[in-house]
């Protein structure tokens, strides 16, 4: 039973991070290589707001999430907007540069020392006993819950929301969408802000569960594998990819060799690229265009 819980938690972490990659790719065909750094920045923002709202954890989290949305909009309006009409590669390289910039900024502002937002918020993270004797920490449980909520909301938003439908339209054919009067800049800015929001939420919850340091960048990068395995333009794919990668990782740790856990996501990724390059639920024509 503990293995099932471990898979659920790891899959939730990957899925929450992966949906940020999918959001931006689906709308603008850009692979955001700074997603890990943006997630880390969100967690550091929480660390800062935690000191401002010491006895009000919900206010601190809400303020940090709001700031992360602003960061997402700023990244788009100040940098990514200028990449419109340029080669996709130029946009990807811009995200790489954003990542490097953010990593440096984080050290300059917060130092590279390990931080504990949970402690700053004066909260604790007890573990709860589940059926079958399995245990889960409160923060890990929140990660699973948040992932379910985020995906549920995204499905509803994209299917029924006015802006969600506009985002889908822009993703399917940007030129046609623009000709129909859809404001592409607003749609792209929304995609960047939502992506940063979900990434930051993941970063914050991971930091609350197990502390915060620069290694979060690598965790963000690892979530790229589930997104690709599932299909870069599919949310269902991101969920399934996260579940597959997490299960493979946990089983490898438990039954084969813990060292394999680092390799397994990328082995699956390579296998998927060989067999079905557009991923489990991805669209074939979309990948051809990349």
């Amino acid at each position, binding site marked *: 039973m503990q293995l099932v819980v471990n898979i659920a938690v790891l899959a939730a972490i990957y899925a929450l991070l992966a949906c940020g990659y999918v959001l931006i790719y689906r709308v603008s065909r850009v692979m955001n290589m700074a997603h890990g750094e943006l997630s880390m920045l969100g967690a550091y923002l929480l660390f800062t707001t935690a000191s401002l709202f010491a006895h009000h954890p919900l206010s601190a989290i809400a303020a940090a999430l709001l700031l992360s949305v602003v960061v997402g909009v700023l990244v788009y309006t100040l940098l990514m907007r200028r990449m419109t009409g340029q080669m996709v590669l130029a946009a990807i390289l811009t995200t790489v540069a954003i990542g490097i910039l953010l990593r440096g900024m984080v050290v300059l502002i917060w130092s*590279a020392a390990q931080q504990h937002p949970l402690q700053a918020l004066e909260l604790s993270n007890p573990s709860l006993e589940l059926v079958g004797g399995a245990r889960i920490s409160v923060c890990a449980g929140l990660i699973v819950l948040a992932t379910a909520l985020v995906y549920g909301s995204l499905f509803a938003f994209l299917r029924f929301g006015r802006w969600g439908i506009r985002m889908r339209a822009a993703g399917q054919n940007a030129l046609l969408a623009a000709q129909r009067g859809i404001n592409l800049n607003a749609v792209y800015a929304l995609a960047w802000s939502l992506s940063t929001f979900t990434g930051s939420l993941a970063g914050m919850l991971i930091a609350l569960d197990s502390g915060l340091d620069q290694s979060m960048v690598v965790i963000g990068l690892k979530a790229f594998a589930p997104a690709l395995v599932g299909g870069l333009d599919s949310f269902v794919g991101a969920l399934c990819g996260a579940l597959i990668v997490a299960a493979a990782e946990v089983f490898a740790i438990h039954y084969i060799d813990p060292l394999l856990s680092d390799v397994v996501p990328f082995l699956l990724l390579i296998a998927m690229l060989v067999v079905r390059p557009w991923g489990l639920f991805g669209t074939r024509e979309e990948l051809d265009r990349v």
Partner: protein
Amino acid sequence: MSKKTLLAILIIAASYAGGASQARAQDAYLIGITGALTGPSAGTNGPPIEGLRIYIDRLNATGGVNGKRIQLTILDDQGEPSKAAANAKRLLTQDNVSLLMISSLSSTYAPVVAESKRANVPLMFMGAVCPKEVFPPADPLEFCTTAYGSGYDSRATLAFIKETAKEPVRLGLVAMAIPLSRGEIDYAEGEAKAMGMTPVDKEVIPPPTADYTPFATKLKDANPNWVFSWAPWVTQVKTFEALRRLAWEGDYITWGHIEAESELARLKDARFYVIGANSLFQDNLPVHKQIADAVKGASARYPAEQMTEGWIGGMVLEAALKSAGWPADAGKIRAALETVKVDTKGLRGGPIEWSKDNHYRARQYYRVYHWDPAKSAIVQAKNWVGYDVR
């Protein structure tokens, strides 16, 4: 003012500034350091460099060494071998440093060592793991002030476990998937068997891991009553916390990196022990107050209790330069380092003493700390125990 006149003024000003800087450099001891100021290991390697910088600034403010300033050039390598190699080359060929220092990941060592050998300039490891070349018989150019030393750390830890355990020891071992950590834990596994303990599981955890619970689950299933971890702090403490969340109630002992003091106070777990070669600030020695005061006035990014490694590096550097005299080239500094004996004023259990064959220290001391819930404070679980380094 015409453009030509302006250009001429700029050229004269630049050459004057360059000349002045060269003159200042010729009138100072030139020391270069490459380290991971940013990147994944910056939390471990950054504070020692900052501690060293604060020590040197303080020394320069009081007249330097032998009446000369120490000019410290610090370059960031982000823990990447290629950047460390470029830094070393620049420091040796452009900045003409007489002593090269490094505080970075062990993967950066090989290119830096190669550059140091090519230039025949001594290399001092500080706040980063000591390579085997500094232990007897030592490489003539390599020296190390860092607290931890492979082999000795495991022996001291296992001796503490044996002495403290009230029942037969079923030992779990935790390493990070980097060569040095794995090597030490493999060594500890062999030693533990020789000491009559039963190693029940060994988890080698890859660096940056999203969730440590799967590793802790496997470890807990093996039912250890003691766990020993020798790895970067992140791996050590996150594995412990994951074990506790799984309701594991055994004893956990781990290496006391620079983060140990604040983490002991955060975790408040009586059965979480840290073993280390540096005293903690809770001991409240005069030297601790000295460091805290210096850090307070230096707008440091890291807390004072993380500066010990850098402070010791500064003490050794000061002693070596004092003994090398003025002017001091790389050869004189190397010769001075070989005879260094520094009283660490309680920061370590004994002096840092080097000889021709031993560039680690003649005797390595260990102390164990843990949290005492009754006193609500960090206390010593075992006072200094010394091991001869041979």
